[in-house]
């Protein structure tokens, strides 16, 4: 009798290989959880490559003058560091990994709307990544233009720009298909009773993100194709001597790449909105305001690209308009931060690792956001443009924001994915190492930038020596923390204590599924009768 019951219990998604063996069971699987894990593992590898390049750059900058590499190599380092971190880690990061794994579960669905397309997106991602990394090894070496591929230099340089540009194009296509898939999933696959305003905020964040992926990415696609055409045909689309306009390239680039900044940060904000109510045992404050602020960020985000070009030649009125619009984006972002803080107020806060990373996110994102306003104001930007202040600012937003949200997400959903718990104590220690190291690494950059140290040089004047030494020290601490974090998580995966369905006592639907979830997610699809955060404290 017992045996029969065990037989009827469906296999979880690790056990159910779909009748295939070994790696084939993974790379031909259309299960959203398996695809999410494929993304997680591949993305982590690229992340470590990016970290290594970052470490090498910091090492080069420990002293003025040449330390370990030539200037040209250094130019390749910062270009690839940017390309890898942005196109291979930060943009796909949270949506492709946790959007894939958790979002269908949170909606009470069995999978995404187009499972095969989902797998195709991963293949495109891998192909694009391989292309991007191979620029290191073939031809005249890694591109040296910076990740922005600014014309006219990107057209003149002899390095592998065309290949890198094609890689970014393919990665963009992967991103578009993921966005398309998620939009359709959210529209069509919510379970019974889950109205739009009973949807978890992470799904809302992905919804806003997907619209940006869909409506902004094609513009960068065509722009990069224009660069490739320029390089092969040499016809002067962006070359002023032949009638072209290099500033037009910058416009086209940022028409995508600024909205892309919100592709990077919105899913992270969604993760934070999930974690805070669980670990404060409180209903999220201002659910509707958070929803609308996500949509507002996505919308306004389209109209602020000009603030990347305040010093490249734009009319006075255009600069003022772009500056005002930039300040406008700060409003919905601040709405979120205030709602998060109000959620914590009078909550019974439990400082588990996901919560620590979430709080770390708020702290670092606040610094990132405020330094963003300094960079977006016309008067101050002239002084700060192209200095380390900007480098510090976007690392606070991208790493302190999205990166920490990614770490928060992995610590939050880890027990759901693997059915085991990592060592909480070790994870807490890792958080403090990374958080502390982060500030040692990036705060001196803000300082050096204020003093006027320009970015993207392998050398600097002696007066910037002290902040650079501190910053390089910080880079070692962060790298150590990341290694420790990986060790803790791998240990947890191997022999962590098995956990039940809901170790955090959370109310969203993914915690009603088994840990790890069965292939079909739920034996019987759930029915929802109230909002996702009705904690009775």
């Amino acid at each position, binding site marked *: 009798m017992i045996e029969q019951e065990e037989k009827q219990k469906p296999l979880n998604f690790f056990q159910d290989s779909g009748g295939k063996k070994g790696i084939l069971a993974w790379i031909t699987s259309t299960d959203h959880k398996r695809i999410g894990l494929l993304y997680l593992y591949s993305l982590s590898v690229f992340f470590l490559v990016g970290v290594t390049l970052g470490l090498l750059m910091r090492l080069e900058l420990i002293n003025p003058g040449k330390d370990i590499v030539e200037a040209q190599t250094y130019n390749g380092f910062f270009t690839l560091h940017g390309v890898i971190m942005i196109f291979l880690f930060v943009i796909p990061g949270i949506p492709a990994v946790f959007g894939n794994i958790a979002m269908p579960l949170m909606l009470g669905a069995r999978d995404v709307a187009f499972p095969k397309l989902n797998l195709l997106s991963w293949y495109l991602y891998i192909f694009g990544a391989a292309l991007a990394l191979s620029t290191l090894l073939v031809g005249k070496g890694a591109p040296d233009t910076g990740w922005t591929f600014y014309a006219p230099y990107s057209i003149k340089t002899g390095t592998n720009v065309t290949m890198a540009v094609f890689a970014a194009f393919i990665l963009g296509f992967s991103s578009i298909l993921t966005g398309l898939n998620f939009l359709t999933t959210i529209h069509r696959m919510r379970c019974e009773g889950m109205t739009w305003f009973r949807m978890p905020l992470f799904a809302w964040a992905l919804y806003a993100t997907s619209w940006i992926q869909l409506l902004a990415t094609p*513009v960068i696609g065509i722009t990069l194709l224009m660069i490739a055409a320029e390089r092969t045909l040499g016809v002067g689309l962006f070359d002023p001597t032949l009638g072209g306009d290099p500033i037009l390239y910058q416009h086209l680039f940022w028409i995508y790449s600024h909205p892309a900044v919100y592709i990077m940060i919105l899913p992270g904000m969604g993760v934070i909105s999930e974690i805070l109510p669980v670990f404060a045992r409180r209903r999220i404050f201002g659910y509707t305001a958070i929803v609308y602020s996500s949509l507002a960020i996505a919308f306004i985000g389209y109209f602020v690209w000009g603030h990347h070009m305040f010093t490249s030649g734009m009319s006075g009125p255009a600069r003022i308009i772009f500056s005002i619009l930039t300040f406008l984006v700060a409003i919905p972002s601040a709405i979120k931060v205030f709602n998060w803080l109000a959620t914590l107020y009078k909550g019974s806060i439990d400082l588990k690792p996901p919560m620590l990373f979430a709080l770390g996110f708020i702290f670092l994102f606040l610094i990132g956001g405020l330094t963003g306003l300094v960079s977006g104001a016309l008067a101050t930007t002239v002084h700060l443009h192209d200095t380390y202040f900007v480098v510090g600012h976007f690392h606070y937003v991208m790493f302190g924001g999205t990166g920490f949200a990614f770490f928060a997400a992995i610590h939050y959903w880890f027990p759901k994915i693997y059915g085991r718990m990592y060592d909480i104590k070790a994870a807490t220690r890792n958080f403090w190492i990374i958080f502390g190291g982060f500030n040692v690494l990036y705060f001196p950059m803000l300082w050096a930038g204020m003093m006027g140290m320009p970015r993207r040089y392998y050398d600097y004047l002696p007066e910037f020596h002290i902040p650079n030494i501190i910053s390089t020290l910080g880079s070692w601490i962060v790298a150590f923390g990341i290694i420790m974090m990986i060790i803790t998580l791998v240990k947890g995966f191997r022999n962590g204590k098995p956990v039940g369905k809901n170790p955090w006592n959370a109310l969203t639907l993914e915690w009603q599924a088994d840990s790890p979830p069965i292939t079909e997610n739920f034996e019987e699809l759930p029915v929802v009768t109230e909002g996702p955060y009705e904690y009775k404290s």
Partner: protein
Amino acid sequence: MSTHVEHRDDTARKMGMWLFLFTELLLFGGLFLVYSIYRFANPEDFARGGHELNVFIGAVNTIVLITSSLTVAISISAMQQGNKKLVLQMLGITIFLAIVFLVNKYFEWGHKIHYDLYPGSNLFRALPPGEGLYFLLYYFMTGLHALHVIIGAIILGFMAWYVHKDEIDATNYALLENGGLYWHLVDLIWIFLFPLMYLIH
């Protein structure tokens, strides 16, 4: 073994296609943006470039594509009524018209390339900058469009195959509708390209 319950959602499939078409519009939108900025900066050069094109071939191709949109629409109506033979005939005509379009395009491009007007040639380099930009955009935009014609024709070929195999039938034709939607997009882009390239003064 997983027993995936296949439940069909035609609305989702069509929604996916519409979303994809938005991205296609924005892909070309970037080029239209570049076109309008450079035309604004060099109105005379662009007009001179436009006069070099053969309006007759362009007009013929416009009629060809609009007709093909009609035949694809008829094929979908025929599928709704279960008239398989008519569906296949209409898809056949559509693909044939796609090939006619491409052949015209081949002669049009071939003619220009024959007398040395292509990006990177000596004649091309000697052109005034604005005219060079015009022809670059001409090749880029009509080339990208022609690529879409080829992809669209291949998609419709698959649709015909599925109809033949009865995988698309009167109760399950969302896929055919999606193929048709894509083809209408190809048509729509050309309707913008034709006046912008051939009919400027």
